[in-house]
């Protein structure tokens, strides 16, 4: 028996064996339910992980705010804007034309503040 004959016999046998295989009529319904269920589970898992991460981030932030001293700034550590008495130029500002250093240009102090 040469290889060409073997290939012919192999093709014939594979075709005959494949012809004995039948699929069940409800295969599509079962597969559809299965892949929908997996997709739903995948999305629920993603939502649960996102919720856990969000809750953990919230917890860490609240813990950091809670353990800090009341006077110490937690988020912004820039000094408070200088107090400018009414009618006078704010102290610590540069001569005219230069921008004030360390203070916000639009900062307005309330009257009577120290």
């Amino acid at each position, binding site marked *: 028996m040469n290889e060409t004959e073997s290939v012919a016999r192999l093709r014939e046998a594979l*075709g005959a064996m*494949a012809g*004995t295989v039948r*699929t069940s009529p409800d*295969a599509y319904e079962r597969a559809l339910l299965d*892949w929908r269920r997996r997709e739903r589970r995948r999305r629920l898992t993603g939502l649960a992980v996102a919720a856990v991460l969000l809750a953990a981030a919230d917890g860490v932030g609240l813990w950091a705010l809670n353990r800090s001293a009341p006077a110490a700034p937690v988020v912004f550590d820039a000094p408070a804007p200088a107090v400018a008495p009414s009618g006078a130029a704010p102290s610590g500002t540069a001569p005219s034309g230069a921008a004030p250093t360390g203070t916000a240009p639009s900062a307005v102090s309330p009257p009577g503040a120290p």
Partner: protein
Amino acid sequence: MTQHPAPVPAAPPDVGTPAPDAGTPSARRPGLPGWGGLRDLEREAAVTALFDRHHTELVRLAVLVGAQGDAEDIASEAFCELYLRWPRLRDPAAAPAYLRSVVCNLVRMRLRHLQVVRRHPEPGLPDAGSAEQEVVLREDHREVVDALRGLPDRQREALVLRYWLDLSEAEVAATMGISCGAVKSHTARGMAALTKALKECR
């Protein structure tokens, strides 16, 4: 999976055959998916069309490369994998090749699992073979199938993909995840071993 006697050999399926309209699973598709979304509907329609065209072919492929009783489960698992990974698929035309590749991998995993189970036999394990299928096959076909089952997994996969699905060497290589040279090697060795086994049978 149910297996019935069928005297007519099944020809290798045509990959480009359009899906029939009536009586197909897509014609009796259930309602919309619960999570909605146009993209989900498109994905489900595409996977359903692929199911219509390739499900039987994939079940047969699973049987031929070594799966017996759970070939239909393996094919269904392949479609689930495709459905989950559909958004990451670069080209929808690559889906049939992806499905074939998943089926081959799952059958290989199942055969490895069976090898481990057989090393530690437990009473009451069901026989993986199908007696009905054995009865239906002719004597000469059974000789070839027995010889094919005696081959290593890779050689059997290469022969089935090459000579039953009539894939090119490049397509077989893509399906098996190996190089074209390795496909040639597996095919040549498999055919030589098969020819030798068939000669010994005579």
